[in-house]
């Protein structure tokens, strides 16, 4: 019983500290000083740095989706509809979620490790001692970069995925280009596009904010940094899936 109570207390404390950090980050958004250079650095690290992994993920997901759906659609003599299936899947679900999971693995872990190392080597305490708010200097630029770059990376991932699917459709399924691209466009409604564009904002926010929170709560030396890195990836990956479900549910309710 005591163990359960302690666990519940620790969980509530974590949520409370996370909410406080997010609240302070929001306040920092509207009051100076602003660290523009750090924002540019983070846009580069999170956006450009994640480009390769996101492009590869999108490309192979689109290709395998075309291959698999080609086999299934063949059963119904509907091979020409492959573009419709790929575009609906990539734009609404696979693009945002797989991109977010890749960014969680690469960026979430990196943020937790970097901030965790700064905590255990007293660099965060030194920042505060030098009169700098760590949330303003370290958390806000990362959150802003996550908010901006994850949707952009998702668009790239979806675009590359559709190209990958086109290559497979053309070379393996022997469907004409025009038929494929007509099918891609025909399979999409404007609500689908909005959904594909809106969800990554939420996913980018949870990945980066969880990475920052876990990093700043690191304790226990270098071992603690390792633990924080693992926790950040696990927590942000699960959060991506949960938030994706909740936002999808809300958007379906609002738009469809």
């Amino acid at each position, binding site marked *: 019983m005591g163990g359960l109570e302690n666990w519940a207390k620790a969980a509530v404390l974590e949520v409370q500290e996370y909410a406080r950090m997010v609240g302070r980050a929001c306040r920092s958004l509207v009051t100076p000083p602003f660290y523009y250079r750090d924002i540019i650095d983070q846009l580069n690290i999170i956006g450009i740095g994640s480009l390769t992994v996101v492009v590869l993920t999108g490309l192979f997901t689109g290709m395998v989706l075309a291959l698999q759906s080609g086999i299934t659609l063949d059963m119904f003599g509907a091979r020409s509809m492959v573009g419709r299936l790929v575009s609906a899947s990539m734009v609404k679900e696979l693009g945002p979620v797989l991109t977010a999971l890749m960014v969680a693995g690469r960026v979430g872990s990196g943020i937790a490790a970097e901030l965790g190392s700064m905590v255990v080597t007293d660099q965060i305490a*030194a920042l*505060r001692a030098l009169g700098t708010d760590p949330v303003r200097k370290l958390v806000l630029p990362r959150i802003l970069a996550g908010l901006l770059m994850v949707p952009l990376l998702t668009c790239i991932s979806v675009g590359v995925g559709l190209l990958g699917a086109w290559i497979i459709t053309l070379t393996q399924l022997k469907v004409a280009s025009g038929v494929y691209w007509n099918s891609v466009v025909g399979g999409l409604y404007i609500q689908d596009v909005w959904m594909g564009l809106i969800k990554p904002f939420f996913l980018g926010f949870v990945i980066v904010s969880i990475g920052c929170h876990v990093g700043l709560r690191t304790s226990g030396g270098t071992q603690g940094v390792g633990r924080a890195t693992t926790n950040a990836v696990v927590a942000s990956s699960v959060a991506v899936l949960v938030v994706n479900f909740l936002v999808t549910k809300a958007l379906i309710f609002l738009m469809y």
Partner: protein
Amino acid sequence: MAVERGARSALLEEALGPGGPIVVFDKVTLAFDDKVILDEISFTLKTGHTKIFLGASGAGKSTILRLILGLLKPDGGQIFVNGERVDNMSEDQMMAVRADLGMVFQEGALFDSLTVRENVGYKLLEQKVPYAQADRRVEEVLGFVRLAEFIDRKPSELSGGQRRRVAIARAMAAKPRILLYDEPTTGLDPITSITIDEEIIKLRDLEEVSSIVVTHQLRDAFFVAEHMAVANGSEGVRFERASAHKADEAEFIMLRDGKIAFEGNATELREVQNRDPYIQAFLS
């Protein structure tokens, strides 16, 4: 001088002038869960003086520095820094108090991603000091700690002693009135330790900085307490045995089980060790 100290009102300037109470702890209590770290600790650091905290690991020495900086909040009691009560201040309010405080962390806590120049000039640029002026001050303080040639290196390219000296330069760059040293010589060889001790003495005697030194390196503690720096014209700085009056300005506080086990100058500490087995064990 390129950088000026923060302005204080004339009244406060007079009250906190030489010998005035620049840091005051009044019955400060702090516990982590069930473990009492500080139990009604009271002491006063006078302007221009030095307090040296001794005690076993975990005795709460570093905690005192973190309380002064507002990195921790006490459970009870009052803390005054530079004439302002800080124990009930918010993080935003503490930022102004920290402008007049410098801290040298145990391992230096230099920012890995920045060069020595950027580390030392960090606070100046945060305070919107013009870049050229900040750069002049950075060169000046790096010259003070004799590391001018390392200005464009990264912290990872420096030795342990050099990193501590850069940390001292960073702490003093914005000309704080109070400097806090957390184990500044731990893990360093004796010769490098003496170099660090001399920097502490120079800052105290030549820059009139009030200081609190936390250490369990007795040799360094006594060296800081019993030596003084004298500006020697073109020959630089000379270190000599402190006069009786000067030695009285450095006080030792020994912490034990969250309480103050001893408070007094170096001579009194040597005398009391014959009567107190704990202090005797610590000093032997």
